[in-house]
């Protein structure tokens, strides 16, 4: 009983604290008249178990680009709609609720990149959670290059089933695009790569010099 009381108090205190921290991130970054509406949209998302970070990022993006308040609110509203659509798609595809925030974000990404919802649902239903994000990006890369969506999805799903690790799924779409650059038609390129699965061309990793020359982003100056 005592434990439940402590948890209830913690939740009661945590929610306003989280809301306060969101407002703190938005304060001074977006027009002040947009903050109440954006904040309430973020609270809706939080109450529905949806990820809030994409909404915060959309608002910050609008503020950075000096977009007017109503357009920022509208864009955040659109993003919330995309997240809800992604959650519904995951449930429809067979993911047991509550769906994971990371999965919702992944599916929302795929929809934003222009993949048709039935195709995303097909990939989600065919694959376990870990390779989904990479698989959907690989399919989206091929669709963006005017490959047939169903064939592209079929290749990537087959690659996963053939044992291509998730960190190499983007190399599958790259290999297909390389075949097109060599003069093959899109259908031929898909067939060539499919025939060679799970073997893929060697991937160019960042050189030692590149890694050595890399730096971590500096802390941005506060406005």
């Amino acid at each position: 009983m005592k434990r439940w009381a402590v948890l209830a108090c913690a939740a009661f205190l945590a929610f306003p604290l989280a809301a306060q921290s969101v407002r703190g991130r938005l304060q001074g970054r977006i027009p002040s008249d947009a903050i109440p509406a954006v904040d309430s949209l973020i609270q809706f998302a939080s109450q529905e178990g949806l990820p809030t970070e994409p909404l915060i990022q959309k608002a910050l993006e609008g503020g950075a680009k000096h977009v007017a308040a109503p357009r920022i609110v509208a864009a955040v509203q659109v993003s919330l709609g995309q997240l809800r659509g992604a959650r519904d798609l995951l449930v429809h595809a067979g993911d047991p609720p509550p769906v994971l925030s990371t999965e919702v974000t992944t599916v929302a990404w795929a929809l934003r990149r222009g993949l048709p919802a039935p195709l995303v649902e097909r990939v989600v239903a065919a694959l376990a959670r870990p390779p989904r994000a990479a698989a959907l990006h690989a399919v989206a890369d091929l669709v963006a290059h005017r490959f047939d969506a169903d064939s592209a999805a079929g290749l990537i799903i087959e690659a996963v089933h053939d044992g291509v690790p998730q960190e190499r799924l983007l190399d599958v779409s790259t290999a297909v695009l390389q075949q097109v650059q060599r003069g093959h038609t899109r259908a031929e390129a898909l067939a060539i790569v499919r025939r060679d699965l799970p073997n893929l061309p060697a991937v160019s990793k960042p050189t030692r010099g590149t890694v050595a020359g890399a730096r971590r982003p500096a802390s941005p100056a506060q406005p």
Partner: protein
Amino acid sequence: MNVIDQRIHQVLDGELAAEAVPAELRRAVAQLAAAADLLAAPPAGAVTSLESRVMAEIRRPAPSRARRVMRWLVTPHAIILRVRPAWSVAFAAVVATFTLFTAGQEGPEPAEHEGIAQFVGRFPEAQSVHAVGTFNDWRAGSIELEDQDHDGVWRATVVLPTGTYEYMFVVDGERWVPDHLAERLVADDFGRENSIVIVRPARR
């Protein structure tokens, strides 16, 4: 130098009987034999002294390990180092090469869930270029591109957590430009397009 009669040698060596030599030679033989006996017999006092010293050394308790280590540390030791000049030169060359090639390469080591992102853009007239996106809360200043050889091509290589990010370039602090070299673009819901970078783990 006195020359000893050959017959004395023969008598001492037992090759000739003492009675076969004259009396004066027999006396000389007797004196030499007595002297030899005297030299052969060890002095009684010295034997006792050596034995007692050896036994005393044996009976002395062995020093402790710490004492032995301390004694080894404070005792001078001769170190003999034989060096072939050819090997020395080769070793020096290896050390010099290693030092030259690793100098200035102390970049950040990406962690397990980090990767490398490279931003490249061609802005010939620009004074400053920043990469701004979801990796830095859309705030300029944290990822500044550089044009070190003043050819108008601006570059930055950064370590970021693995994931998918939207971004744009901000040129001269006011002009928002998508990365035309990025293969992935997405509508930004504000009437423009953001570029997409997918950061993959550096330790693949």
